[in-house]
């Protein structure tokens, strides 16, 4: 639960509200007003929030944390108005049966509050000087400039700024947070895949630690998906990481895969593999699948319109016999084998998103053997009797092996070049208090609107294609998504910061 208040926060009363007989842990975070900021003395603070948006976003943040950390109850209160030194600006309390989940959830809430909550603060310095500070720039994510984080990757000619935007727009589901899923998800997160969901119902076991590299000894007993998500958020706060700490089933698989840019099969059984494969085909989503046996592994990318599918390989063979044959030896694992195959899954997924996949990538099984460092590619021809893919009418794009992801994504974030391709648009510079627009250096036809004036923004956006910009390039994306969620498909955000916006004094 999230609340905004202009009254002093009564933390004793809040703590009482969280009391639960089954709770064994209560983790509390308090954000205090301090007497200095960025090397300057501060005498008091004023917080101003855009009420409607702040309450919605705050509620979203606390309920996300409760969903991702089952058993946790979260209460967060944020102050507005004038605060003196030492006063409570934000209070977060999390209770849970066990401490581990409560620590993770509390940390997640304060970082998301800092990153997403539309709150501005005015710092009063001695001598009546005052300046507005956007709180998001104080979050961990706000301090990281994407152009620095991805500098060594975006400078690859095969990636570039446009590739980085494609990655940021991508949504990837990783099923299985084990030996394959840990390294796969790690590289997808650090490469800037904008939305990453980890699905795994399991809990961390001691015998997982030698190969499942997102987990530490402290995590034993905690939900894999939740711990892995927290670890990835710390690794790259610039991307959205979600945890689905339950099984993928016939009942939920469609909702999980629909709309994804790609899905990774990092599971250890044929039943889930077939379930994912068929759901991905139906939803038009490519599936990047891997499996290992001791020192050997295999990798398959199944593009949704391609023949030579999972059924061509293994259909007609009884599922139970496949499981028995595949697991006949009780499961010893050479850790680098799952590491290598998981990293290969990440590489194939990034190639799909960036348009770098070769026709052979989508029509071959790659075999790897770490004992003799050999690799082999086997072409997967269509089985003309395949009950699944033989009925597919192949398009010309599928026949030449080039599979385009463009049709799957309706881009929110656009580069300047992509904006030009849109034709005439209304560009809006969203200004925070104190900021000004230098019209001479702004794109033609740029209109300045106060960030908090959602009504005016909706009014302008209703007239036609609209591109939002702001000084840091973060809030504009958040507002574009908010307006899209209201059913306005013509709204976009410009990738990156708009230098024509001048900061306040």
């Amino acid at each position, binding site marked *: 639960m999230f609340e905004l208040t202009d009254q002093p926060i009564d933390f004793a009363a809040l703590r009482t509200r969280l009391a639960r007989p089954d709770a064994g842990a209560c983790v509390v975070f308090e954000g205090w007003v301090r007497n200095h900021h960025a090397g300057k003395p501060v005498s008091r603070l004023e917080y101003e929030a855009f009420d409607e948006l702040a309450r919605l976003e705050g509620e979203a943040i606390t309920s996300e944390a409760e969903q991702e950390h089952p058993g946790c109850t979260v209460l967060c209160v944020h102050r507005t108005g004038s605060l003196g030194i030492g006063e409570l600006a934000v209070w977060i309390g999390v209770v849970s049966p066990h401490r581990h989940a409560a620590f993770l959830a509390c940390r997640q809430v304060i970082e998301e509050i800092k990153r997403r909550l539309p709150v501005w603060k005015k710092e009063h310095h001695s001598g009546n000087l005052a300046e507005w500070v956007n709180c998001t720039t104080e979050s961990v994510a706000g301090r990281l400039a994407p152009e620095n984080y991805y500098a060594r990757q975006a400078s690859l000619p095969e990636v570039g700024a446009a590739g980085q935007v494609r990655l940021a727009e991508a949504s990837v589901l990783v099923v299985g947070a084990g030996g*394959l899923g840990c390294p796969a998800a790690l590289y997808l997160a650090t490469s800037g895949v904008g939305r990453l969901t980890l699905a795994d119902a399991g809990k961390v076991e001691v015998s997982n630690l030698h190969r499942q590299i997102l987990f530490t000894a402290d995590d034993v007993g905690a939900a894999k998906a939740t711990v892995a998500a927290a670890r990835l958020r710390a690794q790259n706060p610039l991307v959205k990481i979600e945890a689905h700490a339950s099984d993928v089933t016939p009942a939920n698989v469609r909702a999980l895969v629909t709309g994804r840019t790609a899905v990774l099969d990092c599971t250890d059984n044929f039943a889930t593999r077939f379930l994912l494969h068929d759901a991905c085909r139906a939803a038009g989503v490519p599936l990047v699948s891997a499996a290992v046996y*001791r020192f050997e592994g295999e990798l398959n990318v199944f593009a949704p319109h391609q023949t030579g599918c999972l059924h061509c390989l293994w259909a007609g063979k009884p599922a139970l016999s496949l499981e028995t044959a595949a697991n006949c030896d009780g*499961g010893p694992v050479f850790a680098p084998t799952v590491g290598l195959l998981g990293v290969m899954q990440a590489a194939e997924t990034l190639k799909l998103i960036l348009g770098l996949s070769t026709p052979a990538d989508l029509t071959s099984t790659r075999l790897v053997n770490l004992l003799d460092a050999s690799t*082999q590619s*086997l072409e997967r021809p269509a089985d003309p009797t395949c009950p699944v893919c033989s009925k597919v009418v192949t398009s010309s794009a599928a026949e030449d092996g080039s599979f385009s992801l463009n049709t799957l994504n309706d881009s929110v974030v656009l580069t300047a070049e992509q904006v030009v391709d849109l034709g005439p648009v209304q560009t809006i510079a969203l200004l925070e208090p104190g900021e000004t627009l230098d019209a001479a250096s702004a794109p033609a036809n740029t209109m300045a609107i106060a960030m908090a004036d959602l009504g005016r923004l909706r009014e302008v956006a209703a007239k036609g294609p609209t591109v939002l910009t702001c000084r840091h390039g973060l809030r504009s994306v958040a507002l574009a998504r908010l307006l899209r969620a209201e059913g306005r498909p013509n709204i976009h955000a410009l990738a990156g910061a708009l230098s024509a916006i001048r900061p306040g004094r």
Partner: protein
Amino acid sequence: MTASRQLHIKFFAVLREQAGVSTLAVTTSARTPAELYAELAATRGLTLPVALLRVAINDRYATMDTPLSPGDRVVFIPPVAGG
């Protein structure tokens, strides 16, 4: 009497362990992968039923009744599901 032919065989995963080797050159009168696997199962102690396996000939998946030619490279692949 069928002429014998030389083939290059590769085993993957559990078949490699059962066979004790990764690759093998054999001279055989087997006409198809199914016949070849039956021979190898007997001589090498392979326990998986042929119905559960996939085969590739010359870097392309094939069926167990595909005719074999001299010099073919044959890979036997069991189901693998570790993750």
